[in-house]
């Protein structure tokens, strides 16, 4: 930071400027105090405040996570239910293999292959970068298509596995047998009975999906060189810009806890047996 020719005095000056000359405990208490007052600190390098950085970079991340999350749910839940319904069939096997691959194949490598195939060879999409939707709407769609698909492949795989397991469990319940014995059609059993009973565990999926997306976005933005929050974390970790890393981690963790709280509250709404 101080450059190659910095003398001990320069180092001392910088340490004092950053507050590093105080004991760790004092630094920590000061950090907690500032954070509680809403001051998330400043980047050591650019001098910009964390809030400024977040504001400048939240757009791409929101586009990716919302797009990826919706697509993941739209693919994952129907496929998961279908696999459970046709358990043991060829369809089930195929869907399970897709899910297993989606979880195993590293996102950064799959992203690389997607860029290679669709951007470098076929030239359907831009290789890297992000275009803001206010600037050029079609450009925005083109720039986020591949990253959103990448996020959705991993996300939907998680959803498929959890949905399939929970629906299978429900299908084994007595009330499903009763419904069948009453002579209800397959369709009625599935939509009116099984899905309703399986809704609770599926909500849990949202919590798992949130974790998957938050992690996925760091890797995805790095692969596609998209200037979002994930890339910000990866960059600041590499340059050891600790004030930014620290505050970003805290923001993400709070977001994650908040999502899980919403999930828990949703249980109460869907299942009257659960009390707060």
């Amino acid at each position, binding site marked *: 930071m101080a450059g190659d020719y910095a003398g001990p005095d320069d180092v001392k000056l910088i340490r004092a400027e950053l507050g590093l000359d105080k004991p760790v405990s004092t630094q920590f208490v000061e950090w907690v105090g500032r954070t509680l007052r809403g001051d998330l600190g400043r980047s050591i390098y650019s001098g910009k405040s964390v809030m400024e950085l977040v504001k400048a970079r939240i757009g791409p991340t929101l586009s990716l996570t919302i797009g990826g999350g919706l697509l993941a749910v739209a693919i994952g839940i129907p496929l998961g239910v279908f696999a459970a319904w046709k*358990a*043991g069939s060829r369809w089930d096997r195929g869907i*399970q293999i897709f899910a*297993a*691959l989606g*979880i*195993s*194949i*590293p*996102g*950064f*490598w799959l992203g*690389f*292959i997607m*860029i*290679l195939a669709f951007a*470098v060879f076929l030239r359907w999409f831009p*290789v890297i970068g992000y275009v803001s939707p206010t600037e050029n709407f079609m450009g925005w769609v083109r720039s986020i298509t591949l990253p959103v698909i990448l996020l959705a492949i991993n996300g939907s795989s998680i959803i498929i596995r959890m949905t*399939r*397991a929970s629906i*299978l469990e429900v299908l*084994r319940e007595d009330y499903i047998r009763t419904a069948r014995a009453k002579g209800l059609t397959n369709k009625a059993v599935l939509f009116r009975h099984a899905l309703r009973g399986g809704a609770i565990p599926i909500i849990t999926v949202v919590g798992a999906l949130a*974790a998957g997306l*938050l*992690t996925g976005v*760091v*890797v995805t933005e*790095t*692969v596609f060189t998209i200037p979002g929050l994930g890339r910000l*974390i*990866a960059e600041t*970790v*590499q340059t*050891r810009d*600790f004030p930014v*890393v620290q505050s970003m*981690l805290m923001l*993400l*963790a709070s977001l*994650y*806890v908040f999502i*899980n709280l919403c999930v828990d509250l949703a249980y109460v709404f869907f299942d009257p047996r659960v009390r707060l």
Partner: protein
Amino acid sequence: MIPDTDASISEVDIYEDPPLIVRFRKIITTTRRTLKSNPNLLVGTVIIAFMLLIALLTFLPTKDFVARYNPQDLALQERLESPSGTHWFGTDSLGRDVYARTLHGAKTSLRVGAAVAILVTIVGVSLGVLVGYNRVADNIVMRFMDGMMSFPTLILALALVATLGSSLNNVILVIVIVDTPSMTRAVRAVVLSLRERTYVDAARASGASTKRILFFHIVPNTLAPVIIQASVFFGGAILTEAALGFLGVGTPDFIPSWGNIISAGRGYIRVGFWIAFFPGVFLALTVFAANLLGDGLRDVLDPRLRGEE
């Protein structure tokens, strides 16, 4: 129990264990039957065994024969060559042989996977049994674990590696730290349900000490879920190591790992896609195999969780 050789042979004890060779044969037949009836387990085992073989061959003096080149040898006049008879997977931006680097990368990845699986098992089982049996420890340890679980794992690992510095051991340590909470939680849940079982009451009624109950009745019964979890962490650790390497904070460059090879090849997508392509195939295969192995083990060890009836 090991058959007691001093016992008089004239008396036939029907409770005595069969000789070792018979038991060994039985283990072989059961294993073969299990593998045959469970394709997931079979495929997973075969791929992992193959990768282990590569790791072993590149570790032993056979390495130059198997990998054909030294993974660190620079040859700047041969940089970015496409795959050919001389360089099977091509060369990278410094002229290093990608095939050699990929094979040597297996060593790194499997080492990380195995070390994490073993360490997480040791720490997780100890903590899980402790908190499952001690209310005070439970409250303290589990609140701490809840705190750690409120961070998405890769992001926490990223921050920890950044703080500790990039080295192979730090990568292993960090992955162990972020994985321990879920292992502890899994073990704790099993211990909590086991301690209410009648056979534990029976053991206590017959005067067994807490230590004896823990080590002879509780811990052995946590084995099935622990093995399943450990196989998941094995694959997960390999993936996390690679992701950290890809993000540029993982295993340093002089130790070839699939993650850092892919990371190094990322900038050469137009002129040298093979650099990142081949190690990625190995990485994806290994993680896929680990997940298959986990699913297979779960089917065998815990039939209640099986997908099909």
